[in-house]
C-alpha cells in the first residue's frame, strides 16, 4: 500500500484532471463559490451587530431588526449553500463512482489479479468520496479565505495596532498547526493498525472455529487474542494521551487571539486610541478567526488524506478496459482452434513456452499433466481471460483477438475448478447469465442432469433457498453441481472444463460425468481432468509438462509412445480402480 502511494506521488496530476474533467460539474462548483462569496459579506457583519447589541444598544429597534434580518438571510443563504454544496458533492461522487465502476467491471484480468478485492471495494465506496470531499473543501476554503480577508480589512480599518499584533501571533499558529500533524497521524495509524490486527485475529478464529476446537487450542488462542487486544489497548491509550496533550495547544489559538485583542485593546483604550465599543466589536470577531484557522487545518489534513485516494482512483480510471467490440463477429462455421507457438508469462514466470497444438472441432480434447504444467492457463487463454505473451491462437484462420469478445465468451461454457456462487437463490445461480426467461421445467431438468435435483429439493426452500442464508452449508461438491447445472442450461457451443467433477464422490462423479459426456457429444470440448475415464475416452490428448507440450495423440498411441503419459496414467490407474481387485 505504501509502495503504491509512493509510486503514485511520482505521477503527474494529469490523470487527475483528466478524470475530473468530465465528471465534475464545474459550473455548479463555481456558482456555489459565488454564493459563498456573497454570504461572506453578510457573515462578517454579524459579529459587529451582535457586539453592538451586547454593548447595550438593545433599545435601538432598527438595530434589532437589522440583526434579525441579516441573520435570517444568512441562515437561509447558508442553507441553500449547504444544500447545493452537498448536492454538487454527491453528484460528483456519483459520477466518479459510476465511471470507476464502468472500468472495474471491464477490468482486464491481469490488472485485476494485481488488486485485492477488498481494497477495490473501498476504491469505489470511500476513495471516491475522499476525492469529492477534497474538491468541496477546496472551494469552501476559497470562500472562507475571502471572508477572512474581509474580517482583517475591517480589523485594519478599526485598529491597525491590533491587526499587526495578531499577525505577530502567526508563527505560533503555524507551529500549532504543523507540529501535531505528524504525531497525530502516527498515533492514528498505530491505533487503526492494531485494531485491524485484532479484528483480523478474531475474524480468522471465528471462521476456523472447528480447527481451533479440534486442536483443543482455545487456551493459546485466548492468550494470543488477549495479546492482540492489549496491543490495541496500548495504542488507544497512546492516542488518548496525544489527543489530550494536543487539545490545549490546539485550542490555545482562540485563547491567544482573544488575549491579543483584549490586552492590546485595553492598552489602546487607556491611551484613548480606541473606543470601548470598537474593542467589543473586535472581541466578537475573535471566535471567527479561530474558526477559520481550524477550517484550514482540517482542510489541509483532509487534502493530505485525499492525495493517496485521488491517485489510486485516477490510476484505476486510466486502465484500459477490455474491449468487447472487435473486428469480426463469431457467427462463422465451426473450425479447429489452433495454438500457434503460444507463450504466456505471469508475474515474470514462464507458464507456457512456445506451445503449439490443435483442438479439433466437434471433438473432446483432454489436457493432461502434473500440477503446475499450465493446464488451467490453456483454458484461461481459450476463454480469452488473458492474452498470450507471444504467438497466436486462431479459430480456423481467424486470430481470436479479432473476434468480438462477448460473442466468443457467450459461445463458451467454462467451469472452473471451484465455482463461485453469487448471493441470491439457487435458481438465480442456475440461470445466471441467461438473457431469455427460463422455465421452471428447464431449471429442474438441468438440475437433474447435474445430479443436483435431489439435494436441492431437500433444502428447506428448494430452488428458492438463498445462497447467503445457506452460508457455508453447501459442500464443495454441491456447489460444483450447481455450477454444472448452470452450464447445462447455458447449452454452449464450446465447453471448457477444469476438473469439473473434482471433489465429488464416486457415485456423483460417474453420474455427472455421464451427463457431461452427453453434453460434450458433437461439441468442441477442452477438458482438464485427472479422471481416468474422461482422459481415456477423449478424442485427442495434449500432454503438458512445465509449460511445454510433451506429446499429442490418443490414449492408445500415447500410452505406448510417451513415457510421461504412461507414468501419469499408471499412477492414476493404480488408485482409481479398486474394481480390478474384486476378482
Amino acid at each position, binding site marked *: 500500500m505504501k509502495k503504491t502511494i509512493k509510486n503514485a506521488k511520482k505521477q503527474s496530476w494529469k490523470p487527475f484532471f483528466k478524470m475530473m474533467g468530465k465528471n465534475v460539474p464545474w459550473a455548479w462548483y463555481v456558482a456555489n463559490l459565488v454564493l459563498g462569496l456573497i454570504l461572506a459579506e453578510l457573515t462578517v457583519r454579524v459579529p459587529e451587530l451582535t457586539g453592538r447589541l451586547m454593548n447595550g444598544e438593545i433599545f435601538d429597534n432598527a438595530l434589532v431588526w437589522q440583526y434579525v434580518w441579516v441573520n435570517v438571510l444568512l441562515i437561509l443563504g447558508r442553507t441553500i449553500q449547504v444544500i447545493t454544496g452537498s448536492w454538487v458533492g454527491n453528484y460528483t461522487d456519483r459520477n466518479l463512482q459510476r465511471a470507476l465502476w464502468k472500468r472495474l467491471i471491464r477490468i482486464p484480468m491481469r490488472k485485476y489479479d494485481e488488486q485485492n478485492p477488498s481494497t477495490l471495494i473501498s476504491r469505489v465506496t470511500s476513495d471516491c468520496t475522499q476525492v469529492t470531499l477534497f474538491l468541496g473543501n477546496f472551494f469552501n476554503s476559497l470562500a472562507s479565505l475571502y471572508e477572512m480577508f474581509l474580517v482583517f480589512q475591517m480589523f485594519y480599518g478599526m485598529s491597525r495596532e491590533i491587526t499587526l499584533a495578531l499577525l505577530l501571533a502567526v508563527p505560533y499558529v503555524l507551529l500549532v498547526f504543523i507540529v501535531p500533524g505528524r504525531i497525530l497521524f502516527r498515533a492514528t495509524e498505530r491505533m487503526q493498525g492494531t485494531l485491524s490486527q485484532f479484528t483480523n485475529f478474531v475474524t480468522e478464529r471465528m471462521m476456523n472455529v472447528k480447527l481451533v476446537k479440534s486442536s483443543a487450542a482455545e487456551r493459546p488462542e485466548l492468550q494470543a487474542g488477549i495479546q492482540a487486544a492489549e496491543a490495541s489497548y496500548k495504542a488507544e491509550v497512546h492516542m488518548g494521551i496525544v489527543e489530550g496533550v494536543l*487539545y490545549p495547544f490546539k485550542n*490555545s489559538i482562540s485563547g491567544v487571539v482573544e488575549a491579543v485583542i483584549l490586552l492590546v485593546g485595553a492598552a489602546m483604550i487607556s491611551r484613548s486610541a480606541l473606543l470601548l465599543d470598537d474593542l467589543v466589536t473586535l472581541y466578537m470577531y475573535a471566535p471567527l478567526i479561530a474558526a477559520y484557522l481550524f477550517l484550514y487545518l482540517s482542510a489541509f489534513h483532509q487534502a493530505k488524506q485525499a492525495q493517496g485516494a485521488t491517485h489510486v482512483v485516477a490510476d484505476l480510471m486510466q486502465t484500459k478496459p477490455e474491449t468487447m467490440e472487435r473486428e469480426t463477429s463469431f457467427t462463422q462455421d465451426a473450425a479447429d482452434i489452433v495454438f500457434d507457438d503460444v507463450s504466456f508469462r505471469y508475474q515474470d514466470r514462464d507458464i507456457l513456452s512456445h506451445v503449439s497444438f490443435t483442438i479439433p472441432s466437434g471433438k473432446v480434447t483432454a489436457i493432461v499433466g502434473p500440477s503446475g504444467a499450465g493446464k488451467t492457463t490453456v483454458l484461461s487463454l481459450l476463454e480469452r481471460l488473458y492474452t498470450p505473451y507471444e504467438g497466436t491462437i486462431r479459430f480456423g484462420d481467424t486470430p481470436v483477438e479479432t473476434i468480438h469478445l462477448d460473442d466468443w465468451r457467450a459461445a463458451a461454457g467454462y467451469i472452473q475448478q471451484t465455482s463461485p456462487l453469487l448471493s441470491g437463490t439457487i435458481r438465480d445461480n442456475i440461470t445466471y447469465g441467461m438473457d431469455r426467461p427460463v422455465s421452471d421445467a428447464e431449471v429442474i431438468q438441468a438440475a437433474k442432469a447435474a445430479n443436483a435435483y435431489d439435494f436441492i429439493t431437500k433444502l428447506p426452500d428448494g430452488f428458492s433457498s438463498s445462497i447467503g442464508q445457506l452460508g457455508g452449508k453447501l459442500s464443495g461438491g454441491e456447489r460444483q453441481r450447481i455450477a454444472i447445472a448452470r452450464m447445462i442450461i447455458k447449452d454452449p457451443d464450446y465447453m471448457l472444463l477444469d476438473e469439473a467433477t473434482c471433489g465429488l464422490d464416486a457415485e456423483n462423479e460417474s453420474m455427472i460425468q455421464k451427463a457431461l459426456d452427453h453434453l460434450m457429444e458433437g461439441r468442441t470440448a477442452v477438458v482438464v481432468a485427472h479422471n481416468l475415464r474422461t482422459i481415456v475416452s477423449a478424442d485427442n490428448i495434449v500432454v503438458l509438462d512445465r509449460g511445454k507440450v510433451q506429446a499429442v495423440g490418443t490414449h492408445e498411441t500415447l500410452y505406448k509412445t510417451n513415457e510421461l503419459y504412461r507414468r501419469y496414467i499408471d499412477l492414476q490407474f493404480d488408485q482409481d480402480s479398486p474394481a480390478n481387485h*474384486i476378482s
Partner: protein
Amino acid sequence: MDESKKNHVWKSFLILLKDSRLPWLFIIFKLLLSMGVSQLSLIFPDMTAQILAGDLAVSTITLMVSLMFLQYAATGVSVIVGRMAGAKITLSLRKFMLRKVLSLPIPFYDNNMPDRLISRTTEDTQKLSSYLGDDVPNFPSQIYLFLGTLFILFRYDWRLVALTAVTIPVILLLTFVSGRLGFKWNNRIQIKLAELTGYLAEILANIPLLKVFVQEVKEDQKGQDNIEELYKTKVKYQFITAGLTAADELQGIVTNVVAIVGGAWLVTHEYITLEIWMAYYLYTGNLSRGITEMKLFWERTKAAQGAARRMSEIAMEQDEAAGGNLDLTKQDGGDLCFEQVGFSYGDTQVLRDMTFTIPANKVTAFVGKSGAGKSTVFGLLERFYDPDSGRITMGGESVDAYSLRSWRQAIGYVPQETQLLSGTIRSNITYGLERQVTEEEIIRAAKAANAYDFIMEQKNGFDTETGERGSKLSGGQCQRIAIARALLKDPKILLLDEVTSSLDAEAKAAVEEALERLKDGRTTIMIAHDLSTVRDADQIIVLDDRTVEAAGTHEELIQTSPVYQSLLRAAQPAAL
C-alpha cells in the same frame, strides 16, 4: 422479547460489567475533571461581561485568559483520563468476549454468522466502553453546567429565568424532532451503503465469473442503479440535515431576540442593569449547549444499550460442556462404540439407530453416498455435537466422562479441505501444541508428510508466510501441512475426512504415502469416497440412508453388501 428474558439480559449485563471490572478510579477522576471544567464555564460569562462593560484592568484580562488556558489544560487531562478509562474498559470487555466466543458449542456457531460474533467482540465492546468511560462521567457535569447557569440567572433576577423558560420548550421540541429524523435518515443511508458495499464486494470478488458469463453490461447497470440509489438517499438526507440545521439556527435567533426584547423591557423597567443583561446574554449559550449535550447523551445511551444487549445475549449462552474427569491423553482408551445413536440437525434427522464398534489401534473406514451421514459421525466423534439418543462409549465409559480438552487433544483430525491460519508454515505445523517442539521434530514431521521438499523450495522455508487461509499454497500442499500437524500431535485417534479428494494424482500419491506412516500404532478412522484407499482397512462400515448398512472387510462386503457393490461399480472406470 418477553419480560423474563429481558430481565435475564439485564442481569447478564450486570454480570458482564462486574466481570469486566470497570476502572472506577479513572471514571471518578474523569467525572471530577469534567465538573471542574463546567465550573470554569460558569465563571466566564460573568467575567466577559465585566470586561466588555469596561473593566479593562490588565489583571482582570490576565485572570480571564489564564482561566481559559486552565480550562483547556483541564479538558486535555480529562480527554486523557476518559480515553484511558475507555481503553481499559474495552480491553476487559474484549477479554471477556474473547473467552466467551472461543468456548461456545459448535451448534451455536452453526446457527450464528461469524460476522456477528466478530462485531460483538471488536465493535460493540468499543461502543460500550466509550459510553461508560466518556459519556457517563461527562454527563453529571453537563447537568451541573445547565443547573448552575439557571441558578446564576436566578440570582440576578428570577424574571431572566422565566424569560429563558419561554424558549426551552421550543428547543426541546426541535431537538427531539431533529434527533428522530436524523437518526432515521442516517440509518437509511447506512443500510443503502451496506447494500452497495455488499453488492460491490460480491461482484468485485467474482470478476472472472462475470467475464465468463459475459455479464458486464448487466452488472454495470446493476452497479449504476445501486450507486444512483445511494446518491438519491444521500441527497435527501443532506436536504433534511440542512433544513434541520437551518431550523436550529433560526431557533437560536428566536432565542436571542427573546433575550434582547425581553432584556430591553427588563432594563427599561429597571429590574436589572444593562451590565447584568450582558452577562445574561452570554449565559444563554451555556443553556442551549447543555440541552444539545443532553440530547447527545440520550442518543448515545440508546446506542450503548443496543451494544450492551447484544453482548449480554452472547454472555448468556452456555459454554461448551467441559466433560468429566477422565483424561484420554493419559490412559488407554479402548474400543469406541456407537450404541443406537440418533442425531438431528434441527428438524432433519441425519443419523438413526446407529450401532457399531471401532476397535482400538485398527483402521476403520466409513463409506457411503454423500448425505449418508459420514461427516456427522465425525462431528460426533470430535464431540462437536452430542447425540440426541443412544450413546457413544470409549472403553466402556460414556465419552462424556472424559474431559473435552483431553479428548480433543488425543484426536488428530485432517479435514477434507485444510484450513491454514495466517502465519508461517511452522506456526501452522505446530498449531495447537502446548509442549515445546524441536526443529528436528518439525523437519521429521514435514518429511513424513511428504511436505519437506516443497517447503524447502519456498523462499523462507518453514518461515514462509502462508497468507490468509493458506491462499499462497496449493490444496495438496495445505493438506500435507495438515498431515504434518497431525503427525506432530501424535494422536491416539486419527480422523481422516476424504483427505485426498481434491488432489491431483501426484499429490494424492504423496499424501497417501504419508498417511500410511501415520496409521501405525493408533486408531485410524477415515471417510473415503475413493474406494481404493479403504481396501486395506481392517474394517469398513457402509452407511446408507442415515444408518449402518453393513460392516466388515473389503472381501466380506463384496459378498454381503449391496450398497458397497454399487459403490464399487460406480467407481469402475470405462473399459481400458
